[in-house]
């Protein structure tokens, strides 16, 4: 469904991605792990065309989206839901308007139906009666969940989550894990999740990939990753300060 081939991206002299190869199949849930600043968010933005690579291809159902212009891209962004790391809620709009934004542009539903879907999707992330609030009136974790509701509201078939559980209490975080699993299993949605939370990665992912120094150094099922021979992977998943990964 999504195939990333030899993706390169630098900012100035900073070589962030140095040949990423990755594949996401239909209905599959893939978790990408890696150190802070290693380029996970940059990778995600290439998948819906927010960034253009220096070199390499991103195929969505066989179509190379790196060649599309903005107009053509809009036809495929409808299929994507994206949760931004910093939520990127529209701060001049209410929560309700934020969640209905995609629905109004991507669907032909009536006002009533949209209203109902907004309520339903907010309920999915455990929020009720917040439609009329402004984003700045919410806590950090609530904002994240509104961002999640906004991303899934118009039933996209590919969802990209940039750290869905960061900044959320453990009980809610687990509820979000369940939501992610449910989206994958019941709705047959393909999902790509960026996370630092290994417990969550093991729980929700069909496969886990590790990004290190601009490349995917290991990919496998949660079991395979747990038993990986690679000392870098072992150090990361056990969160040890000592090991081959330099800390400072």
């Amino acid at each position, binding site marked *: 469904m999504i195939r990333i081939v030899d993706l390169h991206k630098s900012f100035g002299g900073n070589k962030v991605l140095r040949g990423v190869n990755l594949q996401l199949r239909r209905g599959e849930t893939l978790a990408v792990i890696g150190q802070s600043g290693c380029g996970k968010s940059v990778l995600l*933005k290439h998948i*819906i065309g*927010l960034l253009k690579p220096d070199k390499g291809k991103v195929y969505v159902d066989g179509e190379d989206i790196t060649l599309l212009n*903005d*107009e053509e*891209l*809009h036809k495929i*962004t*409808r299929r*994507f*839901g*994206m949760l*931004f790391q*910093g939520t*990127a*809620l*529209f*701060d*001049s709009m209410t929560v309700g308007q934020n969640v209905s*934004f*995609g629905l109004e*542009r*991507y669907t032909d539903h009536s006002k009533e139906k949209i209203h109902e879907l907004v309520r339903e999707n907010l309920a999915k992330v455990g929020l009720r009666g917040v439609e009329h609030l402004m984003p700045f009136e919410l806590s950090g974790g609530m904002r994240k969940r509104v961002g999640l509701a*906004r991303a899934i509201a118009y039933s996209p078939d590919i969802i990209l989550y940039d750290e869905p559980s960061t900044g959320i209490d453990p009980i809610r975080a687990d509820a979000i894990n369940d939501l992610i699993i449910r989206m994958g299993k019941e709705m047959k949605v393909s999902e790509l999740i960026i996370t630092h939370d290994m417990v969550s990665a093991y729980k929700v992912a069909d496969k886990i990939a590790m990004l290190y120094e601009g490349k995917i150094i290991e990919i496998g099922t949660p079991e395979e990753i747990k038993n990986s021979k690679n000392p870098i992977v072992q150090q990361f998943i056990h969160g040890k300060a000592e090991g081959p990964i330099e800390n400072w």
Partner: protein
Amino acid sequence: MFRKVKSPLFYINIFFEEMGEVGLLIFRTFKNLFKKPWEKGIFIQQLEEVGVRSLPVVLLTAAFGGLVFALQTYVGFHRYIGPGSETYGGPIISLGLSKELIPILVGLMVAGRVGSAMAAEIGTMKITEQIDALFSLGADPIRYLVVPRTLACFIMLPCLTVFGDIVGIAAGFFYNVVLMGVNRVLYVRNILLYMELWDVFSGLIKAAVFGIIIALIGCWQGLKTEGGAEGVGRATTRTVVIASVLILIVNFLLSKALPANL
């Protein structure tokens, strides 16, 4: 403290790069002008922001612009041509106001009030990834942000100028006739005799052009904002400076290019 001095070539390069950016923005704005969906809500909101909310400051500056202009014109006629000739100040004041001073005042006021706000708002959206979010939710940032703002400025600056003209000319009348005792009938007669509709209209054309300049510069600076709160501040300042300078330059060029009368 001391920044390395770059070669002139570097700045020339940047200049052309930025011209290219603006050119592309203009092109994309016009291309999106006729595309659906048409963002009515934002357009109306911008009409209010640019038009209604700028009206008080425009009227105030127009009134004082009219007053000083009248003051100096009165002095000129009184001193150089002689008592009694002040009634000819009417058409001169009205012409100067409606063709030059009011459009410029409106342009500069709106650049400071609205252009800076556009740069700040869009710049903040840029650095908090809201522009990316717009894109991912199916709203083209040009169509959604730039087109309604540009249209609103294009429509509202001439409207503001009309109000400014009225207040400015009234202030000129007030100074000459009420304060300085110039003959009211002759003053008004001279205005009606020598002023043409084209004098007002050419000022409105200028104002419309200034509107486009303000909106495009504000949106351009906003969309290219980088680097946190400081970047937003820089975008805001640069918008006001660039737009103001451009308004003065373009004003001269238009004064030269537009025929003096039809």
